[in-house]
């Protein structure tokens, strides 16, 4: 015998102004099965919820319908209230008489009639609700962080300091990412490596963190709380257990002229190398493609030099399979090169460089020991021209979005140059100055007012080389005049773009990405560190262009989500999952193919002797997201969705 309670909310004036709530209460109280009905100004408020709980207890209600706003607003609120009153929280339905009724109509009489129909249909539905229990899924309480830049390091440290195990996977030989390449960071002008390296060391020494460098994630299987990740540890040809990082092998390697990626090609490295002096772990790696021994079997000087026999040319890649419960993706970004624009030379002018190149020049540990020198002839530039938006905010040739960090780092570059070369002149061609962070606008003003950075509003149409100088043809739109500047060096603030294999990597691990390759968050405003795939989180610039403070904040947020997930041994998931009726399933596998979450498997039903009786589909409740695609596909009606069963929906429709 159903005893349904109906609670009609006024929602202030939102509902009450267009729906006659009194009439609704009276009408619905006469509907078969309704044992109690009442109205209130704000049922979502504390006193409102108290009345609901009281009514449940006093009337022994078997089901509750709250006629109010959209379930997306307060379904959870009322579920909790029901649970606290002793009623199974899934015996609750929300009749949306606000977004779907009072907010979209202007005739009170018709709106009231419609509200009555909506409420009635949900009463019919809730009569057929079942006492669903949340599904428990075990959780492996170990996290994996993919990407060892500042975001990855921060996330790993936060998770580890809460007592959980973390595996940090980085594909370069050292952690540190792009932040390790920077000279000084805005707005404090802290030396980048000075603030990063302590964190790097802490990460590698932390008892809860296992750092796997020179390793790549190849496969991710499983689901939240139960991922199986295959990682390839690439062969370094150096024994990590014994190497002390003395650097003798690097000193003696005869192949010295390989352009270093870390130095953006402005400096060289050897075939056996660490990417930079402060590398963590400080164990070198042999570049197989450039090593003389691997190419023609000769040399082996590094092995001869090593006093503790740590070179091993026979090393192989190792595949490791790891069980983790959550994954944080912090794979970072790359900087667009200078070859994008024909009008800026298609990358053939040596003295036209990117912001990252400038960082290496300005860095004290860089190829020029911190002196700003022209790559072409090594001379000090007297005039540097900076071009902002050289690839961002450009629908026709570049990317449409703003790369967010360039206004700030250009101001910083201008300042650093002014500090190092006192008579140097800077000209910065900009469209807008985006300096919205804490201390940012003050920073840019300092560059302009104290360090005399010459900002000119306008974009540059063309630049070319003539007699060793770079002629820059821009415009001052505030004056309305074209401007021509003779520069010794030009720095292009190129776009911050996703890694070259971002899209392919996303497909491998099963998360979504946008048209550019930035990874998709679950909700841009309210869930910026989760993805649509439960258990996989995002941190840092792989999600969108951002600076260091935001990357660190996002990393900590992702860590908090992971720790939330790990706070219990079992994960409770919403029981709104599909299930298959074994007896009627014909095993056509349409649902297996249609499921967007790969949550449906094939299951064999055997008799006692192991003979196959039939093959049926089987839903994994841990993966199922309750979307209902399989239900709509099944021709024989053999699959049903808890919380939205066929009977419930049928009753809801017939109740209208």
């Amino acid at each position: 015998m159903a005893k349904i309670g109906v609670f009609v909310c006024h929602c202030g004036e939102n509902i009450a102004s267009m729906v006659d709530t009194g009439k609704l209460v009276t009408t619905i109280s006469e509907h078969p099965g309704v044992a109690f009905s009442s109205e209130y100004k704000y049922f979502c408020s504390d006193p409102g919820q108290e009345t609901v709980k009281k009514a449940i207890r006093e009337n022994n209600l078997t089901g509750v319908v709250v006629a109010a706003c959209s379930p997306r607003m307060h379904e959870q609120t009322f579920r909790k209230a029901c649970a606290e009153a002793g009623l199974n929280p899934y015996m609750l339905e929300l009749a949306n008489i606000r977004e779907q009724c009072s907010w979209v109509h202007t005739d009170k009489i018709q709106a009231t009639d419609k509200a009555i129909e909506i409420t009635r249909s949900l009463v019919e539905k809730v009569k057929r609700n079942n006492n669903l229990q949340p599904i428990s899924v075990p959780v492996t309480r170990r996290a994996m962080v993919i990407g060892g830049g500042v975001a990855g390091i921060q996330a790993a440290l936060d998770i580890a300091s809460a007592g959980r195990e973390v595996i940090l996977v980085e594909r370069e030989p050292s952690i540190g990412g792009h932040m390790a390449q920077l000279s000084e960071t805005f707005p404090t002008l802290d030396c980048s490596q000075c603030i990063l390296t302590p964190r790097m060391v802490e990460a590698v020494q932390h008892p809860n963190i296992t750092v796997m460098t020179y390793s790549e994630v190849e496969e991710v299987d499983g689901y939240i709380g139960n991922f199986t990740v295959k990682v390839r540890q690439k062969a370094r040809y150096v024994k990590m257990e014994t190497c002390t990082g003395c650097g003798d092998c690097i000193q003696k390697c005869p192949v010295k002229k390989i352009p270093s990626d870390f130095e953006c090609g402005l400096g060289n490295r050897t075939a056996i190398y660490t990417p930079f002096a402060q590398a963590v772990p400080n164990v070198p790696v042999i570049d197989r493609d450039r090593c003389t021994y691997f190419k023609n079997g000769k040399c082996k000087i590094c092995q001869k030099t090593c006093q503790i026999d740590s070179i091993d040319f026979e090393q192989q890649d190792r595949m490791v399979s790891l069980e983790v419960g959550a994954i944080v993706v912090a794979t970072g970004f790359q900087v667009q090169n200078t070859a994008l624009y024909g009008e800026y030379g298609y990358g053939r002018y040596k003295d036209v460089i990117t912001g990252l190149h400038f960082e290496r020049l300005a860095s004290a540990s860089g190829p020029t020991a911190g002196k700003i020198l022209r790559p072409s002839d090594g001379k000090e530039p007297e005039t540097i021209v900076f071009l902002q938006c050289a690839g961002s905010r450009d629908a026709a040739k570049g990317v449409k979005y703003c790369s967010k960090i360039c206004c700030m780092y250009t101001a910083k570059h201008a300042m650093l140059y002014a500090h190092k070369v006192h008579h140097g002149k800077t000209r910065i061609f900009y469209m807008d100055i985006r300096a919205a962070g804490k201390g940012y606008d003050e920073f840019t003003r300092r560059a302009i007012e104290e360090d005399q950075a010459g900002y000119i509003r306008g974009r540059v149409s063309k630049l070319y080389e003539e007699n060793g100088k770079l002629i820059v043809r821009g415009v001052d739109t505030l004056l309305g005049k074209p401007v021509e500047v003779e520069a010794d060096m030009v720095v292009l603030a190129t776009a911050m773009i996703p890694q070259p294999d971002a899209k392919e990597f996303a497909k491998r691990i099963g998360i979504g990405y946008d048209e550019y390759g930035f990874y998709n968050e679950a909700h841009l405003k309210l869930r910026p560190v989760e993805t649509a795939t439960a258990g996989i989180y995002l941190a840092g610039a792989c999600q969108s262009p951002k600076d260091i403070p935001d990357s660190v904040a996002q990393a900590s947020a992702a860590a908090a989500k992971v720790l939330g997930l790990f706070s219990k041994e079992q994960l409770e998931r919403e029981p709104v999952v599909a299930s298959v009726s074994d007896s009627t399933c014909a095993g056509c596998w349409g649902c297996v193919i249609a499921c967007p979450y790969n949550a449906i498997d094939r299951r064999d039903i055997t008799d006692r002797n192991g003979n196959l009786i039939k093959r049926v589909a089987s839903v994994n409740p841990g993966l199922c997201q309750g979307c209902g695609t399989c239900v709509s596909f099944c021709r024989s009606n053999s699959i049903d969705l808890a919380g939205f069963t066929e009977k419930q929906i049928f009753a809801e429709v017939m109740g209208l």
Partner: protein
Amino acid sequence: MEHSIRPDSLKQQLEKVTGNNYACCYQCGKCTAGCPAGGFMDNPPARIMRMVQAGYVDDAMKSDSLWYCIGCMTCTSRCPQNLEIAGTMDALREMSLKNDSDAAQTRSKKFVTAFHSAFLNTVRKTGRLQELALVNSYKLRTRTFMQDASAGMKMIKQGKIHPVSALTSKESVQAKEQIEKIFRISEQESQSHTERRKPVRRTFRPDATVKIESGMTIGYYPGCSLSGTAKDYDISIRKMCDRLGIRLKEIEDWNCCGASSAHATNHKLAMLLPARNQALADAQGMDYVLAPCAACLNRQVTARKALIESEELRADLESVTGTETTCRAQFIGVMQLLEGFGTEQLKSRVTKPLKELPIACYYGCLLVRPFEAMGYDDPENPTKMEKVIEALGAKPVDWAYKVECCGAGLTMAQQEMIEDLTYRISKNASVNGAGAFVVACPLCHTNLDMRQEGMRKRYSDAGVMPVFYISDLVAMACGASAEEVALDKHFVPATDMVRNL
């Protein structure tokens, strides 16, 4: 004074004609930065775009900038939001001329409109540009009697200008009534919409190469300047084709393509004049038509594309010619012809290689822009002409002004600006090691060659740079003599450099 963004019917008209959504312009100024004439304008292109955006179209129409704009389309090709800026200038000029009041005309407007009117008047009368008539009319209107006086005398002596035939209109179109009809239709408003432009990615994609072989006969559209002041180019082209074994068949009764003057003042006229040539080429069964002048080529290619897309244009053309057009004939330039011929074939015909002459390949603007229509080579750093030059044995230099406009059709009305622009081109070429230019356009040639002496008078650090036509070099490398390609008719002496090949 109240300033508000006014919805303006004139602005809507501009949006309709250009397809622009002016709200997309975020005033980055790149158009101004790249405009060769930007420094001369009172309201450079970005300002004009802002004026239109804010609804001050009447102010924009009164601006002097319109009459410094060369129509080189650098602005449009670099705009990050894919706006048609050059087209806006064209449309504003057309509006300015229609809403004209003779009072208070600036010098620029007076001179430039005088040029265009003089040009179009002779075209209207005879179907082709009578250069002497043009010059006379222009000088009368602007009272610039002494301009180019000596150059004019020289050209008459060389036979480039025929006073007799110019005055008796011996060389003109037979079907004059068709030309008159074209002009009358162009006085009406156009009804068709241009497709809406959006800020989307635009990448240059080269068109498929044409197939040109020795022994082929292709159509020939000399255009007005090759029949007159650029007669040396015509002679040179014919010689080159002769050396390559290609036969040329001139289109019968061809008319002037309208060049800059039609383009800059009347959109319909700018389409219909070349459309008639397309109809003639189709009717005469031609597959390819060689148009050596880059401006003519640009107009013909644009008109052919417009004919395929616009029903209104096809209807107008039919009312003029009386027949439907298939748009089968493809107009190509001398560079596309050489590309289709192939550098290997070319190399095999070289008997007198050009002894490593350091040459700057000057493409100019109309060969590569607009890049969607022209489809020839990368609009920022083209390299196809260099490949041809290398095949001939010369040494092309890498330089930065390959596609910077020389001033084109404003050569008479804005002589000073032309001299400034050609000075910069010349300087960059010589700084990068070039000793001569090679061009594929008679107007580029005029500006770099005929105006070089005047330019060097103003800029003492400019060196002497002979200007070759591409056909000169190809023909000579394949065995022709300097006289056979009319090298002696150039203003800047060019024969010394190629003696003793």
